[in-house]
C-alpha cells in the first residue's frame, strides 16, 4: 500500500479534464471490510448485520434518517466503539472529523493540528503544511477561541490530514456551517481527497452533499445498509443535471421523505 506523504504537498494536483468519468476502484486495496457487524444498546440492535467494503481512494457517503445508527457505525470504524458481533477490519491510520471541531482550547492551532505527533523539529512544519492545504496558512499561532466556525472545522480537517490517514471518517462535518462555507468546504474536501487518496466514509443527512462528493452512496435503515449505488455522474457535478435529479429522487425515496412509494418504509 503506497503511503500518503505530506512531503509531496507542494506539487499541484494533476491536471484534470473539465469532465472526469466516474472512477472505478476494483483494483485498489481494501481499506474497510465489515462483515455482519452488530451493535446493540440494551435490547435494541442499532446496527444489525452490516457488510461493507471500501477501497483506497473511494469516497463513500452514508445516508440515513436521524437515529438510524450512522454515528454508531462511524465510531466502530474509528475504533472509538466496539461492535458486539461480526468482523471489522480497518487500517491503522484513521482520522475523524466530527461535527464539532473538538480543538483543545488551551493549545495553539498548530499544536492542535499535530496533537498526536511526536514533538520534534518537524512538527511545526507538518502543521504548517497541513494548514496551508486547508487555506489557513497564517493561522498557525492563533488560539482556537479566535476562529470562526468554518475556520475551526478546517483546522479539524488539517489535523485529520496531518495524520496521513488511509481511512478518513467524516461525521456530518459540515452540518453546523453556513451554506456558503459549506460549498467551499465541499470543494476543499473533494480536492484534498483526490490528492491524498484515502478511503473516505462521510456520514451526512444531506442528499445533495452525498451526490456531489461521493463515488458511492449508501443508505442505512433498520440496522442495515438498505441501498448501495455507484454515483455514475461525471465531475464536477451540477445539481441541474438530469442524472443528479434522478439519483436525488431515488435517495429521498429510500430515506422515506418523498418520491415514489418506498418498498422499505411502506
Amino acid at each position: 500500500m503506497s503511503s500518503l506523504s505530506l512531503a509531496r504537498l507542494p506539487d499541484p494536483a494533476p491536471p484534470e479534464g473539465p469532465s472526469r468519468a466516474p472512477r472505478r476502484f476494483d483494483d485498489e486495496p481494501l481499506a474497510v471490510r465489515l462483515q455482519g457487524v452488530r451493535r446493540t444498546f440494551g435490547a435494541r440492535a442499532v446496527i444489525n448485520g452490516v457488510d461493507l467494503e471500501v477501497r483506497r481512494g473511494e469516497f463513500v457517503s452514508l445516508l440515513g434518517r436521524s437515529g438510524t445508527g450512522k454515528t454508531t457505525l462511524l465510531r466502530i470504524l474509528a475504533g472509538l466503539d466496539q461492535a458486539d458481533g461480526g468482523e471489522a477490519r480497518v487500517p491503522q491510520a484513521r482520522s475523524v472529523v466530527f461535527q464539532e471541531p473538538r480543538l483543545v482550547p488551551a493549545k495553539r492551532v498548530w499544536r492542535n493540528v499535530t496533537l498526536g505527533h511526536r514533538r520534534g523539529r518537524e512538527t511545526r512544519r507538518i502543521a504548517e503544511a497541513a494548514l496551508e492545504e486547508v487555506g489557513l496558512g497564517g493561522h498557525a499561532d492563533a488560539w482556537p477561541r479566535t476562529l470562526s466556525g468554518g475556520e475551526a472545522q478546517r483546522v479539524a480537517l488539517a489535523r485529520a490530514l496531518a495524520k496521513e490517514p488511509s481511512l478518513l471518517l467524516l461525521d456530518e462535518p459540515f452540518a453546523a456551517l453556513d451554506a456558503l462555507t459549506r460549498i467551499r468546504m465541499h470543494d476543499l474536501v473533494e480536492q484534498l481527497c483526490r490528492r491524498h487518496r484515502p478511503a473516505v466514509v462521510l456520514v451526512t443527512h444531506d442528499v445533495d452533499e452525498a451526490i456531489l462528493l461521493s463515488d458511492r452512496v449508501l443508505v442505512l435503515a433498520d440496522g442495515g445498509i438498505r441501498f448501495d449505488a455507484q454515483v455514475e455522474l461525471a465531475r464536477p457535478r451540477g445539481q441541474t443535471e438530469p442524472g443528479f435529479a434522478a439519483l436525488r429522487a431515488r435517495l429521498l425515496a429510500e430515506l422515506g421523505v418523498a418520491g415514489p412509494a418506498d418498498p422499505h418504509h411502506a
Partner: protein
Amino acid sequence: MTYAPSPAPANGPLALVDLPTRPKVRSAADAFVRGRRFASRALAPVLILVVWQLSSATGWVDPLVLPSPTDILAAYGELTADGELYDALQASLARSLTGLALGGFTGLLLGLFAGLWRVGEELFDAPLQMLRTVPFIAMIPLFIIWFGIGENAKIALIYAATIFPVYLNTYAGVRGVDSKLIEAGRVFDLGPTRIALRVILPTALPSILVGFRYSAGVALLALVAAEQINARSGIGYILINANVNQRTDVIVAGIILYAVLGIVIDIVMRVIERIALPWRGKLVLA
C-alpha cells in the same frame, strides 16, 4: 390586569436610537475620563480617612479605642525603625508560603489522582469531601496536642487548610474536561499519559489555578489563626505584644499588614493566571 393590544403602528417614522461607536484608544479625552474615574473611586476612602482623622484629633474618639491614621503611620515608623516589621513580614510570609506550597501540592496530587483514576476517586474523594466540612480553626486544639505550639503546628494548620480548595478545583477541573475532547485525543493516537498531559491538564488548568487562588486566601486565614496560638515571630507576634502593651495603634497597623499581605497574594495569583492562561479571552463585563 387585562391585556391591551398595542395600538396599530402609526405611519410616521420609527423611533431610532443611536448605537455608540467604539471609542478611539487613548485620546486625551480618554485620559481625562480615566482620571475622573480614579478620582471618583478614591473619593470614599479619602473621605473616610479625613473623618477618621478629624474625630481623633477633636478628641471625639478615644485613641485607645481607635487611634488616628497618623498615629498608625507613626506606629509603622516605629516598627520599621527597629527592623521588627521586616522580620515579622518575612516570618509570616515564610510560614504561609511553606504551608501553601505543601498543601497546594498535596491537593494537586490528590485531585489529579482522583480525577484521572477511578481508584483514586474511590479511595480519596469521599473522605476528603467529609474532612472538607470540618472548619480548620476547630482543629487548632488537636494540632497543638499533635505538634505542640511551635512552628510545626502553625505550618501544619496552614497545610491542612490549603489542601482542600486545590483538591476540589483540580478534581472538578479534570472531571469537567469535555469527553468529546478526550475522544478526539484517542482518535489521534494519544495514549492515556499524553491525553492527560496534552488534553486534560491544559484544559483543566484554569480551574486548578482558581483552586490555588482560593488556597492562598485560606492560607492567610490559617496564618492569622495559627499566629494567635503563640507566636515568637511574625505579624502575630507584633499583635500579641501590642495587646499586652495596650498599643491599639500597633494592633491596627498589624491588622492592616495582614490585609496588605492578602491583597499582594491575590495580585500575584492573578498575574500567574494571566501568564499561564494566554488562550482565555478577557471575561469582563464592563
